[in-house]
C-alpha cells in the first residue's frame, strides 16, 4: 500500500507557494497603506516640495517599489485563480484561458514597468 503511495507522481507545491506569496504580498500592501495614512496624518498639508522630498527619499522609493511588485504578484495569483475557476476545460476553453492569462500577464508587466518608471522618476 505504501509502495503504491510513494510511486504515485508527486504533486507540485505551487498551490502552497501561491498561498504564502498571496498572504505576504497582502501584508506588504497593508503596511504600505497604513504607512501612507500615517504620513498624511502626521503632515497635515504637504506642499509639492514636501511630497517630492518624501517620495524621492531612499526608503520611500524602496517601499513603493516593493509594494508595486507585491500588487503585481498578488493580482497575478488572484486573476490566475479566477481564470481557472471560470474558464475550464480543453479545446476552445483552453485557448480562451491562455489568452486571458496572457492579457493579464502583459497588463501586469506593463503596470509594473510603468509604476516603477514613475516611482524612480524615469518616465
Amino acid at each position: 500500500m505504501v509502495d503504491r503511495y510513494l510511486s504515485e507522481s508527486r504533486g507540485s507545491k505551487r498551490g502552497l507557494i501561491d498561498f504564502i506569496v498571496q498572504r505576504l504580498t497582502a501584508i506588504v500592501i497593508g503596511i504600505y497603506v497604513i504607512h501612507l495614512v500615517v504620513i498624511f496624518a502626521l503632515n497635515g498639508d504637504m506642499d509639492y516640495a514636501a511630497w517630492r522630498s518624501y517620495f524621492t527619499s531612499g526608503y520611500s522609493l524602496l517601499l513603493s517599489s516593493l509594494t508595486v511588485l507585491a500588487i503585481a504578484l498578488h493580482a497575478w495569483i488572484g486573476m490566475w485563480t479566477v481564470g481557472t475557476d471560470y474558464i475550464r476545460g480543453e479545446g476552445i476553453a483552453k485557448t480562451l484561458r491562455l489568452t486571458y492569462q496572457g492579457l493579464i500577464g502583459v497588463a501586469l508587466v506593463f503596470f509594473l514597468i510603468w509604476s516603477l518608471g514613475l516611482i524612480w522618476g524615469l518616465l
Partner: protein
Amino acid sequence: MRVRVYRYVPEQDDAPRMQDYEFELPQDRELMVLDVLEELRLQDPTIAYRRSCREGVCGSDGMNMNGRNGLACKTTVSSIVARDTLTLRPLPGLPVIRDLVVDMSQFYAQYEKIDPYLINDEEPPEKERLQSVEEREKLDGLYECILCACCSTSCPSYWWNPDKFIGPAGLLQAYRFLADSRDTATSERLEKLGDPYSVFRCRTIMNCVDACPKDLNPTRAISKIRTMLIEDR
C-alpha cells in the same frame, strides 16, 4: 402544503421539470422530509430517490431542500418549509441519474484520491496499535463523516473544479488520516496536497460547515491541512 419535486429522466426527457404535488401535513406530529417523499411515492411511484437507514446514518438521502443541502430523513418539514412550499432538488453540481438520484462517482473518486485508509509501515504489534486518550480525541469531529456529499455539493469551488479540487468531504477525511497517530505516511500524504487545486481551491466560504448534517467542520480541517503544509516545508 405544495411539494415541488425535480423530475428528470435523462434518457427520456429533453429537460428537467418541476412537478407539483399537494400534501396534507398532519396537525398532531412533525414529519421529516423523507416521510413526505415516502407518502408522495404512494401517490406517484415513479419518483426516484435514495434512502436506506432513515436515521441519518447511511448518508444516502442527501438532497437540496428549499435551497439547502441536507439529509431528508433528518430534516423536519417545519424547519425549512417556506410560503407553504417544499421544493426538492437533487444535490447541485452532480450529474442526475434520475429525479433526485445523482451520480456520485466523481465525489467518490475525490475521496479515493486521499488514500482513505490507515498506512503504517512499522512492524504490526501483537495485538493492536494503541492510542492515548488525547491522540484518540484528535479524531473526534472527523471520523463521523457519512460521505453524504451535502458539503461538497454546496461548495462553489467544488462546482467549478469537481475533477481537481478534492472538496470538503475528501479533505475532512484527508485530515482524519493526517491527524491519526497510528498513520506513518503523513509527509507522503502532504506531498500530494500542495498543488493549486487539491486543497488550495478552498476559499473558506464555509458553505460546507453550514450544510453538514452531522455538524462537522470541514473548513477547520482544511485550515489545519494548510498549516501542516506550511510547517512541513
